[in-house]
């Protein structure tokens, strides 16, 4: 197994100045290694920082200590200390992130939302849209909705658009935060298929699952927090 994410002694403490300057430790001394083609489930009691870990790897949260090294463009980048511009480059080409909820932008149609990560990489519009439509179809989004902004979609539809977006670009590292939470069983199964395919294609997957069965089906290994 070739490691693509190496986390060493990671610490995260929130310092809330407005709430009497309290400090909330979320992670301390956390280390892990995730390899290409591996799917790892992050487990632990709720409130123990599972989502926070994903945000730290993605760079949305700033680490208090430690290193998060990601194999990017034939080199290691420490997301914990990298300059914003490097983190953006890592996000563009290396790390994908499926959040719990889609951030809807009014007037941007669903297919464009899905195609965006491909366009950001410089993939031609036609190719990007073709791939986007293919994924939307696989995830059961009716064709008549592709041209509409997901603003008016149901929660489940929005989440499937979000998943399609996450899988569109075949990121070498993919972070999934409860990707199946608001889906029915048929769609859950489709998402698990996508995860399996991404793994087979060599992506490293770091996921948080609510459901034990799904977690076991999707992931080969668990890393426990707390």
């Amino acid at each position, binding site marked *: 197994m070739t490691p693509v994410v190496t986390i060493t002694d990671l610490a995260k403490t*929130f*310092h809330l100045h*407005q709430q009497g300057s309290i400090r909330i430790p979320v992670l301390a001394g956390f280390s892990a290694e995730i390899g290409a083609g591996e799917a790892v489930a992050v487990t632990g009691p709720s409130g123990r920082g599972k989502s926070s870990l994903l945000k730290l790897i993605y760079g*949305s*949260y700033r680490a208090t200590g430690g290193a998060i090294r990601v194999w990017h463009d034939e080199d290691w980048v420490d997301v914990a200390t990298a300059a*914003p511009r490097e983190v*953006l480059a890592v996000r563009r080409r290396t790390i994908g992130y499926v959040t719990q909820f889609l951030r809807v932008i009014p007037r*941007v149609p669903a297919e464009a939302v899905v195609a965006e990560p491909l366009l950001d990489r410089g993939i031609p519009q036609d190719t990007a849209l073709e791939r986007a439509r293919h994924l939307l179809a696989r995830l059961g989004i009716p064709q008549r909705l592709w041209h509409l902004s997901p603003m008016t979609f149901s929660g489940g539809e929005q989440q499937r658009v979000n998943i399609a977006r996450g899988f569109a670009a075949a990121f070498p590292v993919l972070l999934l935060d409860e990707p199946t939470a608001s889906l029915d069983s048929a769609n859950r199964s489709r998402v698990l298929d996508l995860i399996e395919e991404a793994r087979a294609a060599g992506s490293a997957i770091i996921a948080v699952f609510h459901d034990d069965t799904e977690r076991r089906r999707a992931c080969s290994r668990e890393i426990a927090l707390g």
Partner: protein
Amino acid sequence: MTPLLAAEGVTKSYGGRIGCSDVSMSLHAGEVLAIVGESGSGKTTLLRCLSGHLPVTAGKVRYTLRDGRHVSLDDLSEAERRLLMRTDWGFVHQDARDGLRMGVSAGANVGERMMAVGDRHYGRIRASAVDWLTRVEIPEDRIDDSPWSYSGGMRQRLQIARNLVTSPRLVFMDEPTGGLDVSVQARLLDLIRGLVRKLDLAAIVVTHDLAVARLLSTRMMVMQQGRVIETGLTDQVLEDPQAPYTQLLVSSVLQV
């Protein structure tokens, strides 16, 4: 890689009063930076310094010209600076009346920059004006109307078209959605976001509105009392603010 725009220790004081103090930053091609803070935080002063509208008291602002030369703005002659402002740069004012020629038609407003750089073909200028009005979603049949007859949102879109007609690489925006109704704001923000992506524009957006910053920018600078107190990726600053003031700013918005 040389940044498009870079500031080193930019300070502006008016007599004893500090406008902005010791600001350093860099902006690369295609990047969108938001400068946020409350009124009086120095963000507009900084924008005016970065865009060459205000001479700095100390520090330097550098820009990479189209020919690749990376020059300090105060090493440029006034003629070069003014040429830069109406070709390679755009400036979108909060009040469209400051950025438009209210006395002439919408078409003339869009065509002016072309004429300013020497285009002397009416038909071509007209065709560009039509094209740009369409791109900012202004109906073609309003081309000969005065901006006075436009709504606030339309004036703002016209101002954007007027700036973009020379294909600038950098656009400065000062509270571009300020003073507009919420629904009008949303449409304008979508339009700006779309244009910035499509044209691969670099932009510096000054705003007090974190929602505007979130939608438009990839990076943020938070200012308070003339100083930059926090910088980072936009999602970083909004989701994991570090400075006490930023935390207050973010939490007060989230409560709304």
